[in-house]
């Protein structure tokens, strides 16, 4: 019925806009030619540009992200997670690799499946656990869920339910950087579905005409809830959407953390030089349903199998071992440390209290209570049911 989209049909790196004319030393042409070479050879340059701490860090965030989501799945089944879990299984390389290209002071806005990006930017897994468990002491004090958190000192801007809107708001952060003459940049994510909203279009267009310091990662994960990406846009290749905005674009193998990191780094540098917006299309796959309630029966099993064979964590583990940067035992040590960290974090989160009901009335910022400022006449509402009597 539908043409099966499999990794084997993925094109090698394709670029247009300013990247199209890149000289070979910039790597673009070299990579295109080298697409069929073993990944370890294609990425040897990137591998050696990172320190061993950085490589291990990348691996740790991939494992941490998946581990935390697995813990949350378990907690959901136990009835501890309030609501549902919209996980990013299979997309970890896209979000960790891109967030890893940012520097201190930069801002990032997740969409709904970018757990790994939040962790990579320094968010404590315990904070995310508290958010999902709707506990007091969570960054939103129980007022909001999941990735909906804004933490200025980490440069994190929370999205809202209607996706795409966060791009418009992140534009304002980028505008502020530019007005202050700061060389900080912003990065955000849109799924193939979210990228079709009016807000995403308006936001990308404004960013383009204003040449804001922004990188947009369009995660082509094939599914928006239960709707295929070919029902979202009539483009043959998602990189084509960039042309309408006049922004340069690149597509990357979203399951290859080094490819994502390398291309994002380029876009980040470009934004930091004041050269404006870059769109990066990450070709990847949503391995789970829309949320845990969704058994994704509409997804062809063969497609899942093919993408499962290219699991982003397995892929990177293989690079590291084959290239000799890491050994299997040393990576096992990283995994075990993450496992223990998460076990302790879960235990701690489960012992955190639920918020007090009257907390619904006040805003909490890092322990400070701020009266909900617009209900100046709170007493009026408290007295409902007992009308004032004439003396």
């Amino acid at each position, binding site marked *: 019925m539908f043409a099966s989209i499999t990794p084997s049909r993925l094109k090698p790196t394709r670029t247009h806009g300013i990247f199209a004319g890149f000289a070979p030393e910039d790597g673009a042409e070299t990579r295109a030619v080298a697409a069929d070479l073993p990944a370890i050879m294609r990425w040897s340059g990137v591998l050696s540009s990172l320190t061993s701490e950085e490589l291990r860090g990348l691996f740790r965030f991939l494992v941490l992200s998946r581990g935390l989501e697995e813990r949350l799945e378990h907690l959901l089944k136990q009835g501890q997670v309030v609501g549902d879990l919209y996980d990013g299984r299979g997309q970890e390389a896209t979000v960790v690799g891109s967030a890893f290209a940012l520097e201190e002071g930069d801002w990032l806005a997740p969409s709904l499946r970018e757990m790994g990006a939040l962790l990579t930017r320094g968010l404590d897994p315990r904070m995310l656990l508290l958010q999902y468990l709707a506990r007091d002491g969570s*960054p*939103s*004090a129980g*007022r*909001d869920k999941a990735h*909906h*958190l*804004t*933490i*200025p000192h980490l440069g994190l*801007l*929370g999205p*809202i*339910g*209607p996706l795409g*809107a966060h*791009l*418009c*708001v*992140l*534009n*304002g*952060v*980028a*505008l*502020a*950087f*530019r*007005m202050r003459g700061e060389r900080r940049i912003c990065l955000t994510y849109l799924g193939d579905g979210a990228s079709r909203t*009016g*807000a995403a279009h*308006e*936001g990308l*267009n*404004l960013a383009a*005409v*204003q040449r804001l310091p922004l990188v947009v990662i369009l995660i082509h994960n094939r599914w928006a809830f239960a709707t295929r990406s070919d029902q979202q846009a009539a483009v043959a290749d998602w990189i084509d959407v960039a042309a309408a905005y006049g922004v340069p674009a690149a597509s990357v193998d979203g399951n290859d953390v080094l490819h994502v990191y390398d291309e994002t780094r380029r876009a980040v540098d470009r934004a930091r030089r004041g050269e404006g917006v870059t769109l990066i299309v990450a070709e990847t796959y949503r391995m789970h349903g829309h949320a845990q309630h969704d058994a994704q029966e509409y997804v062809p099993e063969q497609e899942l199998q093919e993408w499962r064979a290219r699991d982003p964590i397995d892929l990177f583990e293989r690079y590291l071992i084959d290239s000799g940067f890491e050994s299997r035992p040393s990576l096992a040590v990283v995994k075990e440390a993450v496992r223990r960290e998460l076990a302790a974090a879960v235990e701690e989160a489960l012992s955190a209290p639920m918020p007090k009901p009257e907390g619904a009335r006040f*805003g*909490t*910022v*890092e322990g400070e209570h*701020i009266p*909900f*400022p*617009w*209900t*100046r*006449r709170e007493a*009026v509402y408290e*007295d*409902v049911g007992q*009308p*004032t*009597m*004439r003396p």
Partner: protein
Amino acid sequence: MNDSKSESVAQNRPPEDQEAERGTKETTYLEAIREAMWEEMTTDPAVFLLGEDVGTYGGAFKITEGFLDEFGPERIIDTPISEAAIVGAAIGAAHMGFKPIAEMQFIDFIAPAFDMIVNFAAKVRYRTGVGAPLVIRGPCGGGAHAGPFHSQNVESYFANVAGLKMVAPATARDAKGLLRAAIRDPDPVLYFEHKYLYRRIKEELPIDEEIIVPLGAARTHRPGSDLTIVTYGAMIYKAEEAASRISEEDGAELEVLDLRTLRPLDTSTIVESVKRTGRVLIVHEAPRFGGFAGEIASQICEEAFEWLDAPIRRVTALDTPVPFSPPLEEYYLPQTADIVDAARWMLAY
């Protein structure tokens, strides 16, 4: 003879000299808005303006004429026709410590930014603890024969959204003072400026006084003892006309309250007035169903039911879109005669 001669000499002097002598300056409602932004932008580098045609053209109503030359394209930003992107960028910049003013060319065009206002700006402080001190302003209201999409009063669309403040000035003084207060406010403020009043309202405003009108405080426009008219925006002037007519023809004194701020609503001033007069008529230019009058009437019932000597009544626009042709629009909008009729019925109750 001498008197009239000296008067004509005075009239020939440059207006600035005359103003300096009086200590006041004749200011239209539109100039008041312009001055509020100009002064805030001059004193606070965090204030900037973005919107459609606000720079090169100086705004559809010429409110920001000259701003681009004075403040430059970094602070006076001509945007694409993208209300969601305009408000979104204002929210983000506000998170970073800026105080953006987002202009809607007509307040009707706020509809494409609805999600950004009700789901992002209004909720963000509550959800995350990080506020969004921005102002969204634009021309509202009918009487200009501008049809269904350039005449609306949109306050009720936002009335049920916690987290927003809303102001609707009627006088030049309030237009200036409320806008300055709105720009300085730590939360999102929707500022509804009535286009019918732009050039029709002229007031002598003091030159040296810094005019700031705090949000959340109503104003007694005309004191009275027999009936309270609660209203705001351009309807103030029709209520005033009705009160004068009833005073002359019936000898009854109507109090006219100008709400100025719609959220937070100054319930205590309304209740205090109603307890004195025993009758309350609520007038607004927006349609009736789900309008502000309903909320105000409920609050009066909760706070002052036993003081009422007559049923609460409402005079509002029809529950239709704003029609275009002048006779239709006049029929649609609340008129002085409607207010007089309702007030007389209540006084006779």
